[in-house]
């Protein structure tokens, strides 16, 4: 019913005759009101949430930078969007974050886009089975995502960056290299020691954010992603 009304208002608003009429403003207002009352489609949710996810991925990096912390925290938006509207949009968010981040922040970021897509896929699989429902389960998901991210990003770090990416983990890699380990071993060991901690922290952050999500957003977004499977215990 609301959708039919919205379509009616949109067609009224777009008609040339009404555009000249003084009621046009009221019609525009009614269009916006009816559109906001209609159940949210994935397209609209993606239009709202994907840019927000990208900004969160890049923005939290800025917070971390401002606070001078030895962490990445660059996939919170990806995991959150995966949970809210599905893994495909999560992957889009992750890849777009690193493409846009390449233009705005650091041009070497796009080479780690595959890592973001992997994070979205793993988070999606786990979320579809309700693994974001409780705190201990979320920690397990974080560790799993960290391991997968470490494995996927290792070839890029080895092949393109020569093992050193300029982050805090570079110190661990250089220590392992100095102790006589090969580059492949050093990078994978560094990834396996740093990424699970970083990703667990991010998953916990997402868990907390989803818990603090207002009820009106939860109701709107529940049919689109994996919220239903993961909020039953918290509700």
């Amino acid at each position, binding site marked *: 019913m609301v959708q039919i009304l*919205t379509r009616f208002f*949109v067609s009224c608003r777009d008609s040339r005759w009404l555009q000249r009429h003084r009621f046009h403003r009221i019609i525009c207002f009614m269009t*916006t009101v009816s*559109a906001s009352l209609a159940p949210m*489609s994935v*397209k*609209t*949710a*993606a*239009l*709202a*949430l994907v*840019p*927000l996810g*990208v*900004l*969160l991925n*890049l*923005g*939290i990096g*800025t*917070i971390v930078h*401002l*606070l*001078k*912390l030895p962490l990445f*925290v660059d996939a*919170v938006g990806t995991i*959150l969007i995966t949970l809210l509207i599905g893994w495909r949009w999560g992957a889009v968010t992750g890849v*777009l974050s690193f*493409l*846009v981040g*390449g*233009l*705005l922040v*650091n*041009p*070497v970021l796009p080479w780690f886009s595959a890592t973001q897509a992997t994070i979205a896929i793993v988070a999606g699989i786990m979320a579809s089975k309700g693994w974001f429902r409780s705190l201990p389960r979320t920690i397990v998901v974080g560790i799993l995502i960290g391991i997968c991210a470490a494995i996927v990003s290792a070839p890029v770090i*080895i*092949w*393109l*960056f*020569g*093992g*050193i*990416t*300029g982050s805090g983990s*570079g110190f661990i*890699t*250089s220590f392992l*290299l*100095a102790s006589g380990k*090969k580059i492949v071993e050093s990078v994978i060991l560094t990834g396996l020691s740093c990424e699970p901690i970083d990703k667990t922290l991010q998953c916990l*952050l997402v868990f*907390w*954010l989803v818990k*603090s999500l*207002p009820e009106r*957003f939860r109701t*709107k977004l529940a049919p689109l992603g994996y919220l239903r499977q993961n909020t039953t215990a918290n509700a």
Partner: protein
Amino acid sequence: MRNWIPEERGRILAAIVAAAGTVFVRDHLALALLWLASILILWCQGELRSAIHFLWRIWLPLASGLAIVWGLIVRGSPEYPDARGIPIGLDYAAITSLRIAALASVFQATLLPLRGFQRVHFWSRLGLPPSAVAGIISIFDLWPEFVRRVDQVVAARCARGLMTDRRLITRVRQIPFAFRTLFLSSLDSSMDRAVRWQSERLPERLVKAAASRGGSGSISGSFAWITLAICWVAFAFRHHLILNP
């Protein structure tokens, strides 16, 4: 000048050829040439500032780190495990640093000069649906506002006395609270915006407007860029084979 600017697909194809070549090339001169060419393109299109910013803030520390690790600590190269010595390590560090610089400059030269409707045209010509294009475009416009909001959130927490000291643990504790405030305030406004955009059919209108204005490039420009990229790859492999027969 307009004739030398490539179309969207030509731009992407030339960048892919150059980037693929960069990944496999092991030659200082070839990588330096590509880097300089990309910097020249950025300079011609008025984007030199971003390139310098990257070199100073990101590349220089990275290159120094590579030189210290491979030249002074490991004193060798993973490509030649049997050979040892500072020059071999420094050589590997130099090749890797040049490769990173070349890849970053190619990426910047491909996408950074696009502005306003050119950006819309670029993404829609790559086959993305209007809503996705509108989403991408909005990121660029929302980013400065978002950064300002991040500053405000951190400053507000300091002003309220919630960050009493600068210890690491105090700073770590701020993340979730700052993040939550940021997320919830942005979620509200972005939902409203998306509903308004959809009801006003803004994504479709945006793509239509960009299409009516046309792209900024030409076919001859695309052809020139792709040819240059292929020539560079051929030169790089030939030069490498001459040096290492």
